[in-house]
């Protein structure tokens, strides 16, 4: 009995660690939103988040990452894992002097910034309120 309890404890420990290490399954929707002043098309989203597009019609693009929804965004939109995404921006910053997207913690933080900041673009996992432009829903 004692042996079985040990075994169950180890298996539980393994399962918990495995769940924590593996990426969460993608379930939520992702809405890419932007300030009304920004002129972008859905085809520009990847270029913005990989550092290839910094300006839109003379306006500096201010991209945001959303900590709460980054996993969903990276897997659905960029098809990258967080490690590859981090490496990509390290290289862009080191080689070209680019600044990676500013990280916000929640959907509410992203929406508040995008609503009030010209050139801002971000993504959220809940339907955004009026006052921002939905560039594309994934």
């Amino acid at each position: 009995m004692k042996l079985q309890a040990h075994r169950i404890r180890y298996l539980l420990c393994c399962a918990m660690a495995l769940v924590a290490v593996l990426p969460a399954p993608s379930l939520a929707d992702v809405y890419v939103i932007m300030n009304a002043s920004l002129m972008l098309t859905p085809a520009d989203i990847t270029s913005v988040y990989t550092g290839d597009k910094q300006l839109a019609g003379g306006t500096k693009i201010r991209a945001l990452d959303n900590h709460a929804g980054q996993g969903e965004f990276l897997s659905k939109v960029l098809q990258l894992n967080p490690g590859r995404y981090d490496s990509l921006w390290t290289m862009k910053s080191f080689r070209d002097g680019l600044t990676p997207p500013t990280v916000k913690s929640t959907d509410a933080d992203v929406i508040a910034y995008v609503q009030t900041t010209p050139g801002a673009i971000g993504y959220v996992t809940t339907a955004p309120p009026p006052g921002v432009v939905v560039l594309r829903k994934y």
Partner: protein
Amino acid sequence: MQTVSTRKLLKRPLWPSRITAWLLLGALALQAPARADVEGLALHGFASVYYTATGQQNAPEGNTGFKLDNLDLYLAPSLSDHIRALMEDVVEFDDWHAPGESNGQPVIDIERLQVGYVFNDDVTVWIGRFHTPYGYWNTAFHHGAQLQPTVMRPQFVAFEDHGGILPAHMDGLWATGRAAHGPGRITYDAYLGNGQRILDGALDMQNEGNADAHTAFGGRLGYEFRGGALDTLWIGLHGFDEQVDNFVSGVMTAATNVKVIGGFFHWTPGNWELLGEYYGFQNRAHDGSGPSHSSSAWYAEANYTFFGLITPLARYESDRLSQDDGYFQYLQGGKSYQRELIGVRYDLTPQVALKLDGNHTDATRDGGQAYNEMHFQVAVRF
């Protein structure tokens, strides 16, 4: 009642579970930390330490032992919508010294100090000190040891004070950008700056002004494939031209017109990374006396990453440098060699890499040594 041996026997199947649990917990602890809310200016950098075992005798860079490679710190502030800057300082330990001299004194180098104006996504012009845009390695990895697959750069693209034969840095103006063309895009770099000179066997990029009044200029023109069978392939040509004077104890002993034309490629099909560079030199004494001298240098490297973590690699590098050429005569690294290298890289986390490689180098063509070397490196970025 169970005997001790029976208990041991029954416990044995638990070992894999225990090990697996520890491994998984270890992996959990080593997961890349999520980037916290970041506002303002972030300081980033690279650091690396390594162990070298070498059969080289009395060579300035050839000591066996643990080595502090460098600590690289850089800032990339965006100063306005169209102006950005890049500043990079490195603390390194000079090892290009004569036997018996001080060994590995820390030196602070301002690697890059450049301010750029972004006209649009396709044109940026920088002024200041920058990494000279030739080939792939110099601008892609430079002091970012954690980014590069191997422990060491190819010898001939080493830094100026570590035996390199190319000007890794330039003080001047640099226009860079790209333009969509067909399924991919054209990339371009054009620069001019202070001419280099040779001081005590090493190239000096004259940070304090162009004392010799020689202007260096050069460029790189490439094409990046997007989509199709050649997706991610970047291939191009590069070249530069300048007069390089050699000084010994403040006295000019030679002046050489250095002309370089070459090519490069970098390609990441699937889990492969393939890269190579070629440089053809056609140098001649500045006063026109004597013939021009042909020399060449090249490397090719291939690596394959398994499970996103383990990367075995192989590289061949070689140069054939004319010893009648005033440029190579005075450079400490201006001797011909060839090197076969194999190694493996393990990415412990996205920020931490362990690298092990070994090489056989033959520099006997110009009177050097043939020797074997092994490097083990821990390289981090932050």
